[in-house]
C-alpha cells in the first residue's frame, strides 16, 4: 500500500515510495539520510524537527510524508549557499547561540520564517516567536541575540557586538 510521492528538498527532487503513515521527519532522516533534522519528543512539543515546507516552519514529526507530496522543503542542510553561511547560522555561531547543537537546526529554521514575517522583531516578539522550540542548554539569551544579529545582517544594518556582556 505504499504510495509514490515527490518532494523537493533543498532544491533537489526526490521521488520515493512511502507508507501512508510515515512521518515526514522519518522520510527525511531515515529514507533520505539527511540527519540534520532531529527528533526530541513524541508530542510535537520540542520543535527539534522544525523544517520549512513551502516557506512555512513546520514540525516535521507532525506531518505525514504523503502530505508533503509536491511540496518544497528546506532543512538545515539547505540553509547555507555557495556564498556562505545563512545569516542565522552565522548569528548562532557568532553569539554562542548553541551548546549541544541538538535543537539548533529546528531553532534556526523557525527563525527563518520569523524574520521573513517580521524583519526587525523586538526581544519579546523573538521570545514568543520561538516558544514552540525548546532548548535545554542555552537559557535562550544568546538565541535571542543570534536572531537579532541575523535580522540586522538581513536588513543590511550594522551588526551588533558579539562580545559577551559578562563583566
Amino acid at each position, binding site marked *: 500500500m505504499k504510495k509514490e510521492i515527490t518532494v523537493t528538498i533543498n532544491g533537489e527532487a526526490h521521488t520515493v515510495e512511502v507508507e501512508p503513515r510515515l512521518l515526514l521527519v522519518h522520510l527525511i532522516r531515515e529514507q533520505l539520510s539527511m540527519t*540534520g533534522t532531529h527528533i526530541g519528543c513524541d508530542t510535537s512539543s520540542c520543535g527539534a524537527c522544525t523544517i520549512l515546507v513551502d516557506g512555512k516552519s513546520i514540525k516535521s514529526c507532525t506531518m505525514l510524508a504523503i502530505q508533503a507530496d509536491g511540496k518544497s522543503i528546506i532543512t538545515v542542510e539547505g540553509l547555507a549557499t555557495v556564498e556562505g553561511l545563512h545569516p542565522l547560522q552565522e548569528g548562532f555561531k557568532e553569539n*554562542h547561540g*548553541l551548546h549541544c*547543537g541538538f535543537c539548533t537546526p529546528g531553532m534556526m529554521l523557525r527563525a527563518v520564517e520569523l524574520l521573513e514575517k517580521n524583519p526587525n522583531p523586538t526581544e519579546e516578539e*523573538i*521570545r514568543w516567536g520561538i516558544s514552540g522550540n525548546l532548548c535545554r542548554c542555552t537559557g*535562550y539569551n544568546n538565541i535571542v541575540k543570534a536572531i537579532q544579529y541575523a535580522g540586522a545582517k538581513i536588513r543590511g544594518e550594522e551588526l551588533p557586538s558579539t562580545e559577551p556582556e559578562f563583566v
Partner: protein
Amino acid sequence: MGHSIKRKEDARFIQGKGNYVDDIKLPGMLHMDIVRSPYAYAKIKSINAEEALKIPGVIAVVTGKDLEKYNLHWMPTLMSDTQMVLPTDTVMYQAQEVAAVIATDRYAARDGKEAVMVDYEPMKPVIDPFKALDEDAPVLRTDKEGKTDNHIWNWSVGDKEATDKLFDSADVTVKEQMHIPRIHVASIETCGCVADYNKVENHLTMYMTTQAPHAIRTVIALVAGHVGLTEEKVRVISPDIGGGFGGKVPVYPGYVIAIAVSFLVGKPVKWVEDRSENLQADSFARDYHITAEMAATKEGKIQGIRFKLLADHGYTDAAANPSKFPTGLFSICTGSYDYGTAYLEADAVYTNKPPGGVAYRCSFRVTEAVHAIERITDRLALEIGKDPAQLRFENFIKKEDFPWKSPTGWEYDSGDYHAGLQKAMDAIDYEGLRKEQAEKRARGEMMGIGISTFTEIVGAGPSKDFDILGIKMFDSAEIRVHPTGKAIARFGTKSQGQGHETTYAQIIAEELGIPAEHIQIEEGDTDTAPYGLGTYASRSTPTAGAAAAVAARKLRDKARKIAAYLLEVSEEDLEWEPGKFFVKGAPEKAKTIQEIVFAAYTNHPQGMEAGFEATHYYDPPNLTFPSGAYICVVDIDKETCEIKVRRFVAIDDCGNIINPMIVQGQVHGGLTQGIAPAMYEELIYDEDGNILNGTLMDYLVPTAVESPSWETGHTITPSPHHPIGAKGVGESPTVGAPPAIANAIVDALSPYGITHMDIPITPYKVWKVLKEKGVVE
C-alpha cells in the same frame, strides 16, 4: 586563556553535520522498541508474543526469561545496588521495561510492541517514602536476601552531640520542612544506542549516549565478561551528545538489552527511546525531603545547622554518587557562612517509582543542600527581622579565612563572598528595590527580592575519597604534537555541549603557545582516548582541564631541553614566552615551539626519547569551591497570582576563566535550569504510582517566554590548587538560582505570614496559600 574565541564545534552543528546516536545507520541494522509496564507494582502472569511475531518485520520478542538463560537479566547500578534488565516475574514501577521487540524497522518494532500481550496481577504499591518506612509497609526488594524493610542506607556527618546541645540553648532557632521534588533533566536528545556485535571478531562496538564512556565500558565488561565480552573486546563510542545534565551517566536496561540482542543475533541493534519513555523511566533527579534547622544568636550570628534528609530512590538506588558519599556532596549544606557546628543525617528508601537519584545539572546533591541552607538562612533573617543581605554579610566566611574547614569536613579552597554579593547588589540597585518594595507593600502590592549566596563543591575528585564502583575519579589528557607543530589531544571526559573542543584547545594553547585553531580535541572513544570518569558534576575543567595543563607542561619541559640543545646553551639560560624559548638577555636567539617540535622528530638530542607526546592522569588534591551571589526580583499579581521574574542578576565566581563567552553561556543555561524546578518542573505521581505528567505536553520545560533575560557577571578568586586556577561552572547557576527565586517569592508573601513554600512555586500554590490566609478570594 580569557578570550571569547568562537567555538570550533559549531561549524558542524549549524550545518546539520553533527553526529548523534540516532544518526548512525549500519548495514543490516535492526530496531528495538520496549514494552513497558502500565502498573507501578504487579506480578507478571504471562507474556504472549504470538501476535507480535506475526507482524511483518518483527523478528524477535525478548523477555527477562530469555536473558535469564545467559544470566543477563540483572545488572549493577553505579551505587552498587542491583536493577532488573528485564523482569522475570515482577514489575516494580510504571514504565518499567517488560519485554523488547526486535524488528527490521522502527515502525514494525512499534507495531510489535503494541501487539505483545502481558497479563499482570497488580499489587498495592508503596509510593510515599515516609510510609515506606512504616512497620507494616510491604517489603519491596524481596530479591535481596534477608531484606526486612525498605530502608536503603543511613549516612551522617558532623557532631551530633554538640549540635543538639547548641539547639537546646541557642537564642533563636528556626525550622522548615522542605521537599525538593522529583524532576527530570529532559535533555532534548533522549537516550539511545546502536549495539554492534561482530561475531567473527567477538567484538562489540557500542555507540551510546553516555557522559562517561570509559566507566561504561568497564561496567559492560563486568556484566558481560562471563559471556566473552571482556574489556579489550568492547569499544564504547559516545558521539555528539544532545545534552546530558547527568541523565546520561547511568546504564539503562535498554542499552543492556540492545547489547544482548546484538550478541545473540550478530547484527547491529538500534534503540532510541521516545520522549515519554525518557521522562517516565530514565533516572530522575532530586526527590529529597529535608528538615532544615538553624541556630543563631538574637543578633543574627549563625551558630549551627541540623539537617535531616529522606531520599526517595524509587525501586533501586541508581544514583551516580561517589561510593563513600551515598547522599552525594550534600554535606556542603553548611553554605557560605562561618560557624563550627553542624549535623546532618540522611536515610534513603525504596518505593515503587522509577529508580535513580542522578543529577540535574548539579554536582552530586549540591542543589538540594544549597536550597536548604539558603532558604533557612532567609528564614532566620525573617525571624529576627534583619535584612537578608545584611545577615549574609555579617556571617560570610571572610576572604582571608580561606582555606576554610567546614564542620562537615570540607576544606573550601578560596572565595570572596563579600565582593560577589556587593557586586550583585550594586548591579541590581538593591537599596532602590527595597525602597520600591516598601512603597508597594504600603499599597498592598506583592513584590519580592530574593538572594542566594551559594558555595558549590565540584571537581570530584581526590582519589583518597572519590571513586565510582571502585574506579578512582581522576581524569586524563593525552597530547600529541605532530612534526609540523599541530596537535591532537584526547581526553577521558565527554562534552555534551560544554564546548570542550574549544576550551581544552585554549588551555593547551596557553601552555604551549600552539594556536588553539591548530589543536584538535577528541573525546568519547574508549579505543583512542585515555581513561577517565567522564563529564558530569562540573568536573571537566577541574580534572581533565588540569590534566591538559599538566601534560602540556611536561611537553614544555621537553621543549626546553630540545631548545637548549638546538641553541647550544644550558636549560637554565632559557626563558619561555608563549610560543618560544629564548636566551636570557639575547631574545633574538630563540626557537619557536614549532621549530622545537620539528626537531623532536628530525634532530632530537641523542639519548632523548624521540617524538613530542605527553599524557597525564590528574588526581586533584582537593575539590574546587565555586561560588556565586544571585538576586532575583519578582512581582506577583494579586488577581491571577501569576509570578513574574522581573530581574535576575547572577554574579559567579568560578576562578580563572578560560573562555568568558562559554562561561557566560553555561551560566545562562544553568539559570534556566534553575528557574525550571523553582517554578515549573515536577514529576508528579498519584497514590497508585501513575505518573501524571509523563510527556512534554505536561512536564513544563521552560521556553524562551518563561525564561527571563538573565543579567550575568563575575568575580575571580582563583583556585589555589588547580594548575590554571579554574574551578568549573556548568552547574553553579542551576544550584544557585532556585533558592534566589523561592526566597524572592516568599519575601513577596511574607507580609501575610508565609515563611516557606516548596518548589515548584506555581500561581496555583500561591493562590492556595493566600486563600488560606484570607488574602484572596
